[in-house]
């Protein structure tokens, strides 16, 4: 593997989200709070969300981890804000398919998330990318 392959993992947009995370912090009066760890590597995510009228009105994350896990959390919160719960969960499913290298439905606008496609080629890093998504899924599913 050459550094070219690395470039597929560390895309510019990913590094941008890592360096300048969107929605970093926590909602003080958030209705949904989810903490999740990746026990094999020590990554931690603290996700807070507000859901109003079936829509994710606000989402913020805090935590520590590698570039992939933090960038993915940043992109995830960006993607679900303003979406209804059902769409957020469909996004999550789509993302999971993408991480497994499977085909995924193309009717959703993935935006920046598309940049994470390269992670699928690095099996050891898939869990980094999926941590925040699992937290979101857990929060929204349990609410329902």
């Amino acid at each position, binding site marked *: *593997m*050459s550094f070219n392959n690395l470039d597929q*993992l560390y895309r510019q947009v990913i590094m941008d989200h890592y*360096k300048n995370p969107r929605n970093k912090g926590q909602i003080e009066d958030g209705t949904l709070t989810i903490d999740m760890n990746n026990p094999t*590597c*020590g990554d931690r995510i603290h996700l807070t969300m507000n859901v109003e009228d079936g829509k994710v009105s606000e989402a913020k994350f805090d935590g520590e*981890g590698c570039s992939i896990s933090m960038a993915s959390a940043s992109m995830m919160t960006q993607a679900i804000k303003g979406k209804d719960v059902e769409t957020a969960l469909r996004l999550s499913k789509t993302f999971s398919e993408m991480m497994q290298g499977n085909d995924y439905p193309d009717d959703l606008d993935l935006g920046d998330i598309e940049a994470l496609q390269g992670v699928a080629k690095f099996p050891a890093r898939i869990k980094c990318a999926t941590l925040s998504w699992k937290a979101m899924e857990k929060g929204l599913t349990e609410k329902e």
Partner: protein
Amino acid sequence: MNAKEIKQYFPILDQEVNGHPLVYLDSAATSQKPVQVIEALNKYYREDNSNVHRGVHTLGNRATDAYEGARDKVRKFIHAKAREEIVFTRGTTTSINTIAQSYGRANVNEGDEIVITYMEHHSNVIPWQQLAKEKGAVLKYVPLQDNGTVSLEDVREMVTEKTKIVSIMMVSNVLGTINPIKEIAEIAHEKGAVMVVDGAQTAPHMKIDVQDLNCDFLAFSGHKMCGPTGIGVMYGKKEHLEKMEPIEFGGEMIDFVGLYESTWKELPWKFEGGTPIIAGAIGLGAAIDFLEEIGLDEIEQYEHRLADYAMEQLSTIEGMTIYGPLAGEKRAGLVTFNLDDVHPHDVATVLDAEGIAVRAGHHCAQPLMKWLDVSATARASFYLYNTEEDIDKLVQGLVKTKEYFSDVF
């Protein structure tokens, strides 16, 4: 010691990873296996495989001789007084859990203390947490010095008349610290506590003399010392093991079975319920032969030189933080570090693209990570097949990592 020659015995090291010759720097997680060990396993399964301690037939005898022969090798390897003191287990984790559940349950009561340190591996933390919770005992952590060592004054302060068990790793899998076990055991014994030693990172790399250390228990794993996975050792002084109850019951460990009562075999077999780890023990025996032929003192000195060289070379990289004892201080053959703001997972991924295998994460030592105030670190660990050339490649890899991330940032 000629590491280049020794490397020839390890077929796995002769391969390319991601287009580069493999540089394996993760032996503290698990070591690679020499042909001598692979052949011993091969021979056992091809020629001698049979269950032990029961066969009247020839294969049964051969398997039993090989299995019990491995026990004798382990006894000699750690200088135990008697072969009855050597119990085969699945590994360090199982050994420490057995000590906690058998000796611990019988001897630790409400208000008693168990003393460990901040640098322990989870396998030497959680068995004691569980025991303390169950018994209402107190788990105490000896703090660390700035250079990642333990001071005997602190140990003296922590260990009291209430302390029943002191359990400490001899060599840290993160810091590389070598703890003064003999002195700590003396302090433990003065207060009437037993000394348990986690030897997982010791047995592969230096001589262990349990009688000289005067430890009560010692735990270690085969797979970190050129042996197969799934085999480990629980050493205990006979006076303790004799009084301890088994924690696994079933075949192989019984003397007589009645409908409502049974009795146990004598030592060490009462602790080896079920068909034992026959091939694993034989493989471990072959690993001991291999290491002893080279010489444990030789290996220790060689790795010490490698560690010194690595410390020297790595510290030339700007932005490098190295944890544990400083260059020139006594330390084992591993270096744990962080490079600037680059997360250790990202460091490990870039190094892997260069064929270099290092560990990244919390190294099963979350209390220590908390003490170091980091969420994760990267670690390069060395063994007898590593060379200065491997370290040079690591340094080059890290320089590239730095450049790569300064470009993308």
